[in-house]
């Protein structure tokens, strides 16, 4: 703890704390002879006590007038609830199922529907967390800011809908997801949960910017990569020279270079998606130690209260004074 005074010159008033030791504050009555006054230790102690009270009260008042404050400080806290931004791919490829088809009797659930169902379950289970939702395809779509309202989050997940369209453009989506953390206190783990089935290349400038924002916001990234049979694997380096074919691999490489905790899950079927989400849940359960900034606090009220409590006995003593008899 460190202290400061807004107007320290008023502390000169503290010299007034000497006054009670020089004068008692009670008018004197002339008495014939001091030698005839019997010694009384209780009276002497009471006299000293009252002087000390008056002195301390004056000190407290002087300190209060000088407006003391505690400087802003960082305090270590243990976060419980996570802040999770669901970054959901709603490009047209999400309409397909894991085998790459999107029509016909054997098509089953689309990737989109699987992701929504499992995410909804995930949201249901996590009652302590705050969720936000961003959909993206060619451009990001602002769906829902960070909220604790389950109904709203479930509705937002539902609103992604079956009918995806457009391409997968990750960078603006990530930027918007990170934007939700801006200006919010860090009270728990910050997680960007990216659910997508493909990737595009991110320009170099955007890469640097995103890396900076990830580090500023201390956010973690989990990428659930819904891989179709004919999509590229994350871990396999491209063999050809085509950049388009290896964009997932390059994105994976880039995410690893972000400097924040990052996990990628390759999910090739609904069961794998469920496992991936369970794993994310486990990671999100880890308590977060974080530092919170406590702003500068005005402490003068404390000193005024102290002065008041010290002045009450003095008032009582004043009412006990006898001046004539």
């Amino acid at each position, binding site marked *: 703890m460190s202290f400061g005074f807004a107007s320290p010159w008023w502390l000169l008033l503290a010299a007034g704390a000497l006054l009670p030791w020089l004068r008692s504050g009670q008018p004197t*009555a002339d008495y014939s002879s001091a030698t005839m006054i019997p010694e009384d230790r209780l009276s002497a102690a009471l006299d000293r006590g009252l002087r000390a009270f008056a002195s301390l009260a004056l000190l407290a008042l002087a300190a209060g007038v000088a407006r003391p404050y505690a400087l802003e400080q960082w305090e270590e806290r243990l976060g419980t609830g996570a802040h999770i931004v669901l970054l959901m791919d709603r490009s047209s490829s999400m309409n397909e199922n894991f085998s790459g088809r999107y029509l016909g009797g054997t098509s089953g659930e689309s990737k989109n529907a699987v992701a929504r169902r499992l995410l909804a379950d995930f949201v249901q289970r996590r009652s302590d967390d705050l969720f936000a939702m961003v959909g993206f395809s060619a451009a990001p779509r602002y769906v829902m800011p960070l909220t604790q309202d389950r109904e709203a989050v479930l509705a937002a997940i539902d609103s992604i809908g079956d009918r995806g369209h457009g391409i997968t453009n990750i960078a603006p989506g990530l930027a918007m997801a990170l934007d939700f953390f801006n200006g919010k206190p860090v009270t728990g783990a910050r997680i960007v949960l990216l659910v997508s089935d493909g990737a595009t290349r991110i320009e170099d400038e955007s890469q640097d910017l995103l890396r900076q924002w990830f580090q500023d916001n201390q956010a973690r990234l989990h990428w659930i990569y819904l891989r179709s049979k004919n999509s590229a694997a994350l871990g396999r380096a491209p063999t050809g020279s085509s950049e388009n074919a290896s964009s997932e691999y390059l994105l994976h490489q880039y995410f690893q270079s972000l400097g924040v905790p990052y996990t990628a899950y390759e999910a090739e079927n609904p069961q794998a998606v469920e496992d991936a989400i369970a794993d994310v849940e486990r990671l999100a359960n880890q308590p977060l130690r974080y530092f919170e900034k406590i702003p500068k606090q005005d402490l003068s009220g404390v000193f005024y209260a102290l002065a008041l409590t010290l002045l009450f006995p003095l008032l009582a003593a004043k009412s006990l004074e006898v001046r004539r008899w």
Partner: protein
Amino acid sequence: MIPEFHYRVRWRASGAHPGRHASHQTGGGYEFAGHVPLATFPDPRNIDAHATLNDPFGQLMVKTFRQRSAIPVFVLADLSASMNFAGKPQMLAELAAAAAYSAYRSGDPFGLIVCGEAIRWDLSLPLRWHKGGLPSDTAESLAKIRPSSRNASALGEAIPHLGRGKALVLLVSDFHLDDSFLEILLDALRPHDVVPVAVWSPAEYESLPDWGLIHLRDPETGRQRRLFMRPSLKLRFRETFRARRERLIELAARHGAREPFFLEGRFDAEALTRYFYET
């Protein structure tokens, strides 16, 4: 009306001036002193036939008598600041007026010496027959006085002004004095008949509040004490004053003064008369 008290001394006055008190002086009176030859005391009115016939030498014998004489009466007042307490100056003024008036009524000369750090001659009176008691201007200024001296050291200086003859000295003070100073003073006053008159006020010990905070200041030393009054402390005040009273009686007895007379709260002339006839 000025209160009056009667005083009596147990010694013979030496002064020639006729008065009320038994005296060594031979003269007109009723107290038979002895027979002397007419040649020694040529007063043929008092020739005693019986003594003349009995005288082996056949001389004419004369009866002699002792006259009654006046004695000087002094009031020696302490005017230190401690006397400026609840009604003490008033008691002092009343006592001085009563003493002057009583001296006038007894035909005795009266003197008043008021002492602070120095003798206050402006308030004092020389030894005279003051007709009708205390002069009114002295009485007025005494009633108005606010004692503020830091001590009463001039009491010692006043002793030469009491004269050579034995005098009745009313030493008026509250006797909140150093014991050593008091002993020296009483020793110096031994040639005289000293009546210590202790002027005390009940406000000093009897009528203090039972409860409360009081802040006392000694006007002579400037010392201050804040006291939390409660019945037990008040009892200790009374105890202190009772002990002081015994100490004063003991000091007076040891240093040749009469037993102190205590004026508590008000001046009572009859009590003073009783005091003179009892001691």
